[in-house]
């Protein structure tokens, strides 16, 4: 079946490629663009490891065809740090608060948390948990992921981070 030309912006760069219509966005990102930060966890739209930011929405890139992203602007974990390597506040938060163990869920968690904080810069713990409910972590028990996001929110808002008492 004829391949289709797709073009989009990924982490600020214009990219294009020829894909079969059935090519999933996650495969285009990982195999054509060789950006392997977004992971395939479940492949069944449940785990969120494949989450990227697409035109202001957090999306599961295993459940979109690359052709649906024609013309879109996408951010993956590779686009989060500054060009000089300075970590994004969320990356710093995950590092400082031990928000990861194996790290498999982390790119998806960070991209989802990124959109959450843009929409709600000062979320409550409950709002954070509800906001990342589409992302599974099999290691941390989420406690430190929530702290990492609270750390990032404080840093972005320019206020001191206060770790809640356990």
């Amino acid at each position, binding site marked *: 079946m004829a391949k289709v030309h797709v073009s989009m912006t990924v982490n600020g760069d214009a990219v294009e490629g020829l894909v079969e219509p059935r*090519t999933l966005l996650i495969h285009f990102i990982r195999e054509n663009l060789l950006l392997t930060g977004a992971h395939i966890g479940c492949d069944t739209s449940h785990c969120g490891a494949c989450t990227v930011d697409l035109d202001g929405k*957090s999306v599961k890139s295993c459940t979109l065809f690359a052709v649906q992203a024609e013309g879109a602007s996408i951010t993956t974990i590779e686009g989060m740090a500054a060009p000089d390597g300075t970590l994004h506040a969320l990356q710093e938060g995950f590092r400082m608060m031990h928000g990861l163990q194996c790290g498999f869920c982390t790119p998806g968690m960070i991209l989802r948390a990124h959109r959450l904080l843009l929409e709600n810069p000062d979320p409550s713990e409950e709002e954070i948990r509800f906001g990342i409910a589409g992302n599974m972590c099999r290691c941390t028990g989420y406690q430190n992921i929530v702290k990492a996001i609270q750390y990032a929110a404080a840093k972005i808002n320019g206020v001191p981070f206060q770790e809640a008492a356990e």
Partner: protein
Amino acid sequence: MIPGRFEYHRPKSLPEAVALLAKLGEDARPLAGGHSLIPMMKLRMATPEHLVDLAGIADLKGIRHEGGRIVIGAMTTQAELIASADLSAALPILKETALLIADPQVRYVGTLGGNVANGDPGNDMPAVMMALDATYQLAGEKGAREVAAREFYQGAYFTALEPGEMLAAISIPVPPAGHGAAYEKLKRKIGDYATAAAAVVLTKADGRIATCAIALTNVGDTPLLAEEAAHILTGTSADAASLARAIAAAEAITEPATDGRGTAAYRTKMAGIMLERALARALARAAG
């Protein structure tokens, strides 16, 4: 898992989409958010040869008032329903329901049209649309027609849509100010379809239930309109005996499957409990 091969079409207008669907016939399916269809294609439970992506059709987006009705374009996403202050004021049950569907990522992409046109008895919006007595505006090669949500669902994945026809918009009569509505859903975890769920829309006058509509999710091959239960409650003061009779009448029309969510008997009982809770909240919210 990679879906089977298909040809991709992206029409820019509704007439173009309708013409394509008519020409391609049974081999084609509309693609909305893809969050029901793509998982089914991965599993080969759906193997369309053509997908007609509706995302490029601006007319299928948005929420507008038309007289006493709210008309929502089929491609409006669940996240857009949640974000609409206008909709939250007029029809708060839609936001309440949308927030119980899946997770944030799915709600950014999944559309109201896809949710109600899919025909999966697990989808949450169809029962709400039945309780609200919504009308589906369909577009086809032979022209436009309207089908009541209450007439639309014929079996699991089997709806009143004719081959080549598609859903353009959902038109909902705005319930009177002071109405009470609620959607209660039992699920095992976030992102799960309902073990059982109930939608209630009612009005009160002089302390009695003046009008009432009830529909149930995922306890039969289709969403179920619980007419007898609503009839029992109408005119009563929602006293304990009437409530118990109505809930028993609603349980009696359920035919759930025994599956990972529980036995059939359990799910029937849970439909009753969800209805009890939805009625309590709708009654508390209603004025009069």
